[in-house]
């Protein structure tokens, strides 16, 4: 049976790959490719965030009756990452590679420690508390993607 941890961890790896692609383009000052790779990366990140914020977190919150718990911390970290996305977009527009690379270094650590918490704590917990509803939640996420 497919699980939340498998599905969403695979999305993390996919985004990591896109992140590295965009970063190397900036380092090489290939600005056109950097722009399109960065947009691709942000698109996939926002997709992933939306699936969590709109489908997974509400289901977990409903099941545990806890809205101020782990999901609140995860939402806050999504906001923090979005702020860095904005700054990275600005540096890309200004073709400021030094600023971009400093921000991407920051984002990498922020994103990785966030992913580690999700993969080690939140996803296993979600699989456990959602139990038999996992397939239907995964299906909702799948459809969510198709709707975009």
């Amino acid at each position, binding site marked *: 049976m497919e699980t939340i941890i498998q599905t969403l961890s695979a999305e993390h790896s996919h985004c990591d790959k896109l992140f590295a692609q965009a970063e*190397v383009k900036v380092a090489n000052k290939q600005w056109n490719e950097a722009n399109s790779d960065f947009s691709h990366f942000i698109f996939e990140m926002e997709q992933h965030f939306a699936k969590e914020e709109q489908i997974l977190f509400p289901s977990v919150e409903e099941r545990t009756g806890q809205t101020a*718990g*782990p999901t609140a911390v995860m939402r806050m970290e999504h906001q923090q990452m979005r702020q860095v996305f904005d700054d990275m977009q600005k540096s890309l527009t200004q073709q400021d590679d030094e600023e971009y690379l400093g921000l991407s270094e920051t984002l990498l650590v*922020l994103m*990785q420690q966030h992913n580690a918490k999700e993969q*080690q704590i*939140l996803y296993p917990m979600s699989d456990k*508390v959602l139990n038999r509803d996992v397939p239907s939640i995964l299906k909702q996420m799948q459809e969510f993607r198709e709707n975009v």
Partner: protein
Amino acid sequence: MNTASLSLEQTPPLSVPLRFFLTAPLFGLLASFLLLYEGPDLLINRWHPATLAFTHLLTLGFVTMVMFGAMLQLLPVLVGCSVPRPILVSSILHILLSLGTLSLAGGFVMGNAWLMNVALVLLGMSFIGFIIVINYALIRVKWRNSIMTAMHFALGALAVNVVLGIGLGMLFGGLGIILPLPTVLIHLHFTWGLIGWIGLLVMGIAYQVVPMFQITPQYPPLLTRWLVPLIFIFLLIWTVLDILAHLNKVPFIIAQLFPGLIGLGLSAFALTTLNIQAHRLRKLPDITLNYWRVGMIGLLLSIIIWVAGLLSSDLAMKPFYPVLLGVFFIAGFVLPVIQGMLYKIIPFLIWLHLQNQQLNVLKVISIVKIPNMKQIIPDRLARRQFFVYLFAFGLTIGAILLPTSFTYVLAGVVLACSFLFLGYNIYRALWLYQSVSQEIANCNSL
């Protein structure tokens, strides 16, 4: 299911890990000064009291100091369990460890029994306190992963080593204690300390951070599940066999099988790390990557020297041999790995705390620009420090093999420079933090 224990605690206050990270380079500097002060004897004779002081200034004052800070920081973030009263706990542990290490080094250098006994009390309290605090936090977590397993075994090794260390310290401190087989116990003490406590913890941290920072493939699950427990078990069996061999109860060759197995296990770790790093997705130059690669090569070289010593008693009997082995392991493996880690953790924590401070300002009038990680510790400074360190390591090895009054002075001066430079990079980051933090506070009060 109890979700309260999975509350994904927020990161502890910045001062909790930072006090340890800010102190560590000072001990490194002190160790370098000791080298300069004591002269070439320090590097050729492992029994020289200054050599023992030098070793402990590095292993306790630098390595363990950073490990304490890193564990108090990583535990809440990566494992999701909180340390109770973090500021109080970290202050007490930090003071005990700092003063304990200073008195221990002082006790060795001056041959002062009173200082030695003070050191035993302070260090004993700091280690036992640390083990209790970390276990208290770990026990409440209902799940297990490879970093937690490694932390458990590393703490177990630390506990074994505290007992050995206190016993040996009492011997040196002239408390009238007679220990059987003192040289065997010393051998056990540094093996449990270096491989058990430091080595196993580095492995656990590596499993977590190496894939994160360079976007490498994960370590093979077979390795992360079994290697740390296996090495711990080999250490235990070897301990028993080594004692029995010295009592002529079992042949030496059987006892020596286990260091070979431990060496194989550590080599598997080093080679796997180098291999996954070679397959990293993030190909940009990175100082942490450089440091970790040097560290893994340093580990492999120290294993080769260790095995060479097991095979050739001629080599093992050379007075410089144990010092060479120790310096390769500590300065060639542990120090680079730790410095590489600091260059990621410190800028990130400073960025995170400034970011959080800014978010907590409710009435935002003007937003202060928060420096990014590469502005907090610029690459060029980190890179220069890395080269100074490499140079210092090479010169120290040179001074061991060619002990003259010139080589050791050169090694001592450059080693001091490398710690000074590391300290500068860390303190500079702190000053930047303070000025930006003040700016945010000013915006708030407008």
